[in-house]
């Protein structure tokens, strides 16, 4: 098997190829804000690095957020298009779960409950809570960091932005496609349709009443 895994739900554009036993190639551009530019070359690079042809890909896994919409869609669109063009299945994984998986792998076997908190802009965060085994117990949700009920150590970039809201920080900051791929191969995360977790409605309001152009007529005295 050859699983292509990718995530663009944070500033990191991350891509990995997994052959069923290990990640055979990976690429991560952390802190990138140019998802559309970076993703395709990163996919070509991992294929080249692994020395495989794109027709050998047997499946695609993609982080479905939550995350800033525009960047998130870059990865989900690419994953779905590759799946359809290569005629292979595409699965989605909550991007916070990818970070959680890495936390659990790093901390095991001494783990304790923790949070994953990523940046949702507008002074808010996307967050989920996990038990000591890395099973999601709440979330994903969006809201101010101060509104998270449990005081637990937190992974993810959002925990770093609102440092004071958490008793401790955990690695990593961003999801890694290496952990995404491994988690999917190992059946260690829930997978679903590759549909973005937006959590917020689009900003849009029905048009306000039109301002009159005539100068108001004053009632005659």
């Amino acid at each position: 098997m050859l699983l292509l895994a990718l995530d663009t739900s944070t500033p990191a554009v991350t891509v990995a190829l997994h052959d069923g036993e290990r990640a055979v190639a990976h690429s991560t551009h952390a802190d990138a804000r140019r998802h559309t530019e970076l993703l395709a070359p990163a996919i070509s690079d991992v294929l080249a690095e692994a020395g495989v042809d794109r027709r050998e890909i047997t499946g695609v896994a993609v982080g479905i957020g939550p995350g800033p919409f525009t960047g998130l869609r870059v990865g989900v669109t690419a994953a779905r298009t590759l799946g359809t063009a290569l005629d292979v299945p595409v699965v989605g994984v909550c991007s916070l779960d990818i970070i959680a998986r890495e936390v659990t792998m790093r901390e095991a076997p001494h783990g304790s409950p923790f949070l994953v908190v990523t940046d949702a802009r507008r002074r808010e965060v996307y967050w989920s809570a996990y038990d000591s085994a890395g099973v999601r117990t709440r979330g994903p949700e969006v809201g101010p960091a101060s509104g998270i009920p449990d005081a637990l150590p937190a992974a993810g970039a959002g925990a770093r932005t609102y440092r004071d809201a958490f008793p401790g920080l955990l690695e990593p900051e961003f999801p890694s496609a290496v952990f995404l791929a491994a988690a999917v191969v190992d059946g260690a995360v829930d997978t679903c349709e590759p549909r973005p977790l937006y959590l917020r409605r689009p900003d849009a309001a029905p048009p306000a009443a039109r301002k009159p152009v005539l100068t108001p007529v004053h009632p005659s005295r």
Partner: protein
Amino acid sequence: MTSQPLILGIETSCDETGVGLVRGTTMLANAVASSVDEHARFGGVVPEVASRAHLEAMTPTLHRALDEAGVGLEDVDAIAVTAGPGLAGALMVGVSAAKALAIAVDKPLYGVNHLVGHVAAEQLENGALTEPVVALLVSGGHTELLEVSDVASAAKLLGGTIDDAAGEAFDKIARLIGLPYPGGPHIQKAAADGDPSSIRFPRGLTSERDMTRHRYDFSFSGLKTAVARWVETAERDGVPVPVADVAAAFQESVADVLTRKAVLACQERDIGTMVLAGGVAANARVRDLARERCAEAGIELRQPRLSLCTDNGAMIAALGAAVVEQNLEPSAPDFATDSSLPVTQVLV
């Protein structure tokens, strides 16, 4: 002529998800999904709503286009995609899909200009263009007068709107007189029963002074205010608003200015062909007046059918075909979308 390369075009610059397939100037498929209904209650395109809809529509539209043409992805020789101008988030969906597709089929990818795509669409209707041409592009987002000396590589902007796009003006006036969104078709329908000469609305940027500074530019905000004032005055005076007459007179003003300046551009630049494109080019009065005035001036008028006037993927494939025919370099794999891509840049 199956010997010509098969080009797949993807368009997502606004609210239509389009995938088209073209060989040379022959259209094999033109699949379009529109999110226009989702925007109706907001009275205009909401970028995030459009972007979400593009993501959902992308692969189904791709499959529809392939089915329509009776080809497989393995038959595709090159891919073209709208790189700009347009809504940034919307463009990124199309470009991300196109880049992934280019990797999957291992074929060259060309990021092209949406506006020039509208001009290239005409080649699918009436065959290869004989450049130079003047193109009048009028849609919900654009009102531009272009001079195209080579559709694959050389276009320049003669003028454009300094405020609202023509389609936007149709949509706003429709709201003002109580017609649904998108306003263009409804105004046209209402205008059919009205008298265009019953009210004389202003013609934007046509005064002698404006014709020196803004010779090929357009403005519709003054017209919009004039219509609003007229309607409000009637309402204030308790007179029923003659919707048909207002629609007809408004439509006449838009059609008059658009075609007058486009014909002028042809004459002054000694160009014998005018191409009319964009959603507003679907307007019957704009089409008729353009035909009439071009005939008088001895200008050949070329306008594609309606489905090729509004945003679609076949127009992008048509431009891709022109670019491929000239053996131009594919776009770099890391090319970016450009929401304000200048018309002078046909290929990124």
